[in-house]
């Protein structure tokens, strides 16, 4: 389990939404280091479509909170170039779904320059982007794509599920000398127009602190079934676990928090204890996070494994109409069914 030395979310009465926590970390880093700046569409006056930069313009002005043309190839690539000069850009790709128009800058430059240079250059940049469905915005605006970014080597990938983690992971991301993709779920941000579930709004210390990458968080302990997940589905898994507890099924829920690096050890420890693994991922089913976790569990704890299951987005584009999106998007009932199926 993670050993966070900093005071945890319990240590303060001050509760923040996830977006406020992210913005607080960005502002603190910007105050401390002139080289940190933000670039993206609608990050200035609008404050980010999902409030990821809300309020920063007032303090830092247009030079450091830069609205840019709708030219993702150019501004994400420019982020790479500025980072190679030693600056610390935070670049927003409004929706992860839009990566396609700029993927070359992301996976061939941002992610590979350090390696291709034999380590002589680094790219200390944060690419932050919104992920996830649940609001019927259809196939081009609802994807999660954790697997795509984590699959391609050279970028660290972080996925907060609470305000406390969002702040600590953002501090760590900005200070990191490598490119970090920071994927936040819209439904967790605390937006007025997209109510969050219980859970992401947590205590957040005013002082800065880092959540180290590669340390999963055991959100709930249990002996029967291990559920490994991230982002929005941490909260859905906790809901399922709470419901099953009434029936005597004790579920352990692990929030991965970062996909690269991945805390395999925490997952293995849990699987050795429970023998049953359910992976829940809002990303597509095939060739992704769920397959990777099951592979790691198999490699590391084959003898202890009795059953595995995964609850994912099926391999279909995400449909628009509510009954269709509800069908494909994993919810707490789907997770509970999977837990029951392996726990029997």
């Amino acid at each position, binding site marked *: 389990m993670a050993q966070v030395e900093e005071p945890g979310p319990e240590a303060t009465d001050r509760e923040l939404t996830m977006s406020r926590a992210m913005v607080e970390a960005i502002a603190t880093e910007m105050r401390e280091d002139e080289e940190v700046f933000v670039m993206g569409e609608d990050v200035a006056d609008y404050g980010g479509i999902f409030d990821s930069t809300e309020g920063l313009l007032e303090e830092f002005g247009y030079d450091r909170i830069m609205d840019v043309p709708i030219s993702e190839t150019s501004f994400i690539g420019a982020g790479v170039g500025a980072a190679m000069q030693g600056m610390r850009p935070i670049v927003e790709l409004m929706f992860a779904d839009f990566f396609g128009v700029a993927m070359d800058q992301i996976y061939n430059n941002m992610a590979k320059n350090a390696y291709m240079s034999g380590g002589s250059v680094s790219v200390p940049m944060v690419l932050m982007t919104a992920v996830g469905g649940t609001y019927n915005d259809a196939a*081009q605006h609802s994807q999660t794509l954790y697997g795509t970014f984590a699959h391609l080597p050279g970028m660290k990938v972080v996925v907060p599920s609470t305000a406390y983690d969002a702040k600590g992971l953002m501090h760590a991301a900005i200070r990191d000398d490598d490119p970090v993709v920071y994927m936040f779920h819209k439904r967790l941000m605390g937006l007025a127009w997209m109510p969050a579930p219980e859970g992401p709004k947590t205590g957040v210390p005013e002082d800065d602190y880092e959540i180290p990458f590669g340390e999963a968080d055991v959100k709930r302990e249990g002996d029967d079934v291990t559920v490994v997940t991230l982002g929005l589905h941490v909260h859905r898994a906790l809901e399922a676990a709470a419901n099953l507890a009434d029936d005597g099924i004790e579920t352990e829920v692990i929030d991965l928090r970062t996909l690269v690096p991945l805390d395999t050890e925490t997952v293995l420890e849990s699987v050795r204890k429970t023998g049953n693994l359910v992976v829940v991922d809002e990303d597509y089913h095939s060739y992704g996070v769920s397959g990777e976790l099951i592979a790691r569990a198999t490699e590391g704890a084959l003898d202890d494994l009795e059953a595995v299951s995964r609850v994912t987005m099926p391999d279909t584009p995400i449909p628009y109409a509510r009954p269709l999106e509800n069908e494909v998007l994993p919810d707490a009932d789907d997770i509970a069914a999977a837990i029951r199926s392996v726990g029997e």
Partner: protein
Amino acid sequence: MVGDNTLQRMYEEMVTARHYEERLQEEYLEGKQPAFDISAGPIPGELHLAAGHEASAAGVCAHLRDDDTVTAPHRPHHVAISKGVDLERMTAEIFGRETGLSKGKGGHMHLYDPDVNFACSGIIAQGVPPAVGAALAAKKRNTDDVAVAFLGEGAIDQGAFLESLNLAGVHDLPVVFVVEDNDWAISMPKERVTDVADGSQRADGFDVHRERVDVDDAVAIYEAAGEAVGRARDGNGPTVLEVQVHRRMGHFMGDPEAYRPDEDVELARERDSIERMEGHLEEHGFTGDDIAEIRERAHERVEEAIEWAKDQPQPDPEEAYEDVFTDELENWPERRDRELAAADGGEE
């Protein structure tokens, strides 16, 4: 010169589009008030309305036939209406119903009507290359149909547009790029993201024809578009046609537009292209009654489409797994019941 019938048709399309969107707005806000929750109410997802853009679609599409291709961006309704997309099935799609154009899978940013060669994309400027592809097909097959790509002034900073201009230019393809300049890209005013006020100038770098219509006057747009479409149909290559339009609403429904100066909102409302069209109609001898009759007909058509759409059934959840491919692949996509069955030991 625009003839009476064309003028009347353009006006009818414009008032249809305006009223349609007023009605969509009402329906959209149902269940989302007093607190706006994007996932509540009868219309799912985001909704981008085109109020203030109608003159552009009416003026351009007046020159198009069903076999001409149009691609629209995330703000598509006015273009769809002028291109002749089935209004009832489009409405059913926007309400997410089974009989919608895409069986409820696409939604308002992703409308497809192959009967009139209409498609859209919600990713900025990404409908442009497919329009070039339609033009390429026309040229290769030696037909005289043309393609028109609609995009916003914010979208012309996107590589896909600039690359398309070059490809269309070098192959003299029959395509018209219609840039709808409403001065805003969500919260970003044009001058914050480009030094070029006349976006059609992008064409110069590719030696492609260009034209800008500075006022959202459907008749002026009709005339400029006539030349551009004619040039394409006659085999004389592409044109960039930029037209000044106005955004009368927030970027999407629920956008409070806190970033936008009040004067700008006022200006957009004052310059009403629909009133301007009424002036044209009067000059052509249409009476107030004629105009009222056209409006009424348009309103009725809209009401009927909305009533029909709201009566349509919701899609069957199982339908979510269909249409990924034209043929059904064995075990693809993964269905959740299969996943659970597999965990149970493989029985379905």
